């Protein structure tokens, strides 16, 4: 008897230890433990350089999960969240993805922001036959059989953005971007579209990532005298670019600048005064006037604070959880392969409107919008595509 007791004591001690190690990453609630649960992994950078853009996605995802749990869960099971920090390092992403898939046995991962981090976890997904929901706009050129891409790929926003500018603002373009794959792919898509519209590209410039000195590029823009600037400058460079462009006298009244990467979140860092009058092309804007969005914004602010803003990737992150839920219910299974197969044609009523997974390419049909930055850091939506735009991750260029 005493032996048994000691053994049981040690077992208990062991599980307490395990709980101790796990509690740093997993959120347990007594209620969720009481019944059978299903685990979802949230894998984003909470530290490091990319955390600037990525950390807030977790907030939106957690909110969706809490809503679903409050409404009874998925197929009668509550969702249990496991959050991991990719720490802005691709190797860490790969390691954490393996941990989520093999140790935690999550039914799906919602995660990644940069394409590099997504590519880094593909081998782990393939080995464990896992499922990833990728909630960030990106350059396309990928269709991995373990991933559902819930945001706009490049053609969806770039083509619409260029057409809108050519029609409303003028046909002489200047393309500026940071020097990596997303801007270069976007511009590759933009150029034939501009040519098709009878427009001209007067210049195409790339600044190294993290560049803070845009004065020479701005002078090139001044010398070329374009009607429109299409910008894919990202991160801290964006702040420098907007500030210096305005200081050089090219504010929103003098030139049309449109970016496919500046959402409400980025404006927070750029400074409202510096972004006023410039445009952005996104799937979602916080200022969208629909009952679904007003409800979403209200719930988010009530949960995380009135001063928080919601950018496009956050809303998509929130949607991703619901796409997974509907796909699970359609598949009547949590098995990633079955969920993936069932995901085709799944449609949700998102804050941004109807979002539907494509029948064959794992991307989503969604509306595209152009907004003009206002002094309060929000966007005035000046154009909206009449119907959802088809995703085309492998455009013929």
């Amino acid at each position, binding site marked *: 008897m005493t032996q048994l007791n000691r053994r049981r004591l040690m077992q208990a001690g062991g599980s307490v230890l395990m709980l101790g190690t796990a509690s740093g990453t997993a959120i347990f609630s007594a209620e969720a433990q009481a019944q059978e649960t299903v685990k979802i992994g949230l894998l984003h950078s909470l530290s490091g350089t990319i*955390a600037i853009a990525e950390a807030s996605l977790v907030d939106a995802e957690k909110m969706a999960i809490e809503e679903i749990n409050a409404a009874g869960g998925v197929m009668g099971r509550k969702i249990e969240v496991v959050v991991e920090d990719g720490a802005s390092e691709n190797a860490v992403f790969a390691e954490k993805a393996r941990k989520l898939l093999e140790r935690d046995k999550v039914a799906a991962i919602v995660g990644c922001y940069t394409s590099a981090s997504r590519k880094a976890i593909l081998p782990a997904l393939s080995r464990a036959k896992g499922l990833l929901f990728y909630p960030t706009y990106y350059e396309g050129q990928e269709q991995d059989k373990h991933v559902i891409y819930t945001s706009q790929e490049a053609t969806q926003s770039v083509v619409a953005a260029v057409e809108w500018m050519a029609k409303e603002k003028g046909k002489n373009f200047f393309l500026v971007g940071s020097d990596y794959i997303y801007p270069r792919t976007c511009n590759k898509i933009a150029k034939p579209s501009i040519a098709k519209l009878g427009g001209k590209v007067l210049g195409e410039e790339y600044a190294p990532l993290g560049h803070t000195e845009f004065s020479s590029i701005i002078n090139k823009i001044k010398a070329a005298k374009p009607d429109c600037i299409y910008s894919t400058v990202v991160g*801290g460079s964006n702040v420098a670019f907007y500030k210096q462009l305005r200081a050089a006298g090219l504010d929103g009244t003098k030139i049309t600048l449109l970016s496919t990467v500046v959402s409400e979140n980025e404006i927070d860092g750029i400074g409202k005064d510096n972004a006023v009058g410039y445009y952005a092309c996104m799937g979602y804007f916080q200022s969208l006037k629909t009952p679904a969005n007003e409800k979403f914004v209200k719930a988010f602010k009530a949960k995380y604070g009135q001063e928080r803003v919601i950018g496009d990737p956050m809303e998509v992150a929130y949607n991703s959880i619901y796409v997974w839920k509907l796909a699970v219910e359609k598949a009547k299974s949590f098995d990633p392969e079955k969920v993936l197969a069932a995901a085709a044609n799944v449609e949700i009523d998102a804050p941004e409107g109807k979002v539907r997974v494509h029948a064959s390419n794992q991307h989503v049909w969604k509306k595209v919008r152009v907004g003009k930055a206002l002094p309060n850091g929000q966007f005035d939506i000046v154009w909206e595509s009449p119907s959802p735009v088809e995703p085309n991750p492998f455009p013929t260029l």
Partner: protein
Amino acid sequence: MNLDIAVMQIFNGVSLFTILLLMAIGLAIVFGLMGVINMAHGELMALGSYVTYLTATAFAKFAPGLMGVYLFVAIALAFAVTFAFGWLLERGFVRFFYNRPLDTLLATWGLSLILQQAYRSIFGAQEVSVPLPLWLSGAWEPVAGIQLPISRIFIIGLTVAVAVGVYLLLNRTRWGLRVRAVTQNRAMSAAVGIDTQRLDALTFALGAGLAGIAGCVFTMIGSTNPGTGQLYIVDSFIVVVFGGVQSLIGTALSGFAIAQSQTTLEYLMSGSMARVTILLLVIVVLYFRPNGLFAAKSRS
């Protein structure tokens, strides 16, 4: 290239020169004179930026009428705070690593990671936006077609003041004389009664304080986030090493050479290619002049 653009390009070169100089001048003192490789120098600039952000926030809340002059208060505060922090850093950390350059490198790199994460925990991972006083925004247009950003003109003026101040401090005061004596021969200086420990702390703190001023000013043209310092540290080291360690004049001239070639090359080719070309030039020059362009002659 027409005349307007040429004038603005020359102005850009001068502006970038002052920015590089402001960045490098603190490092020139810490690394150049004291020989301390401080990898956390960029984070000291970020500290200056965050002090500026806090000052702006405080002014917006308590004295919105005085927003026009908050920057001057911010410059003073940024200097004071980073100076104090630099002093603590030298006394509590850096001095244990003197004469161990490799350990200093690793230790200060670790410190830089700690500081970055600390900023992230305190101020959030998001960029913070620092407002620009109205009189500094926009451009000055001396003739139609030529726009010179007022913020950059301000930076040029400030850098000239700071550089002249540092030069006078080092070359025209007794304190500067002692600093130069210690850098040339520590043992001898101590033997003639100079308190070298106190001097080390003050010199390091001065370098840190100058980094704080640079950080404060850079909020006008760049971004402020926990990783901001990383954007500037490489350029700062290039300017100091290229100019020749131990030579403030060298730092200034190297800043000028790099700034002018960078703006010119950036105009003629793509930004990334310009960067590559500059780095190649620096490597070639350092190959033939390993001590930098303007190495101080010494017997040691």
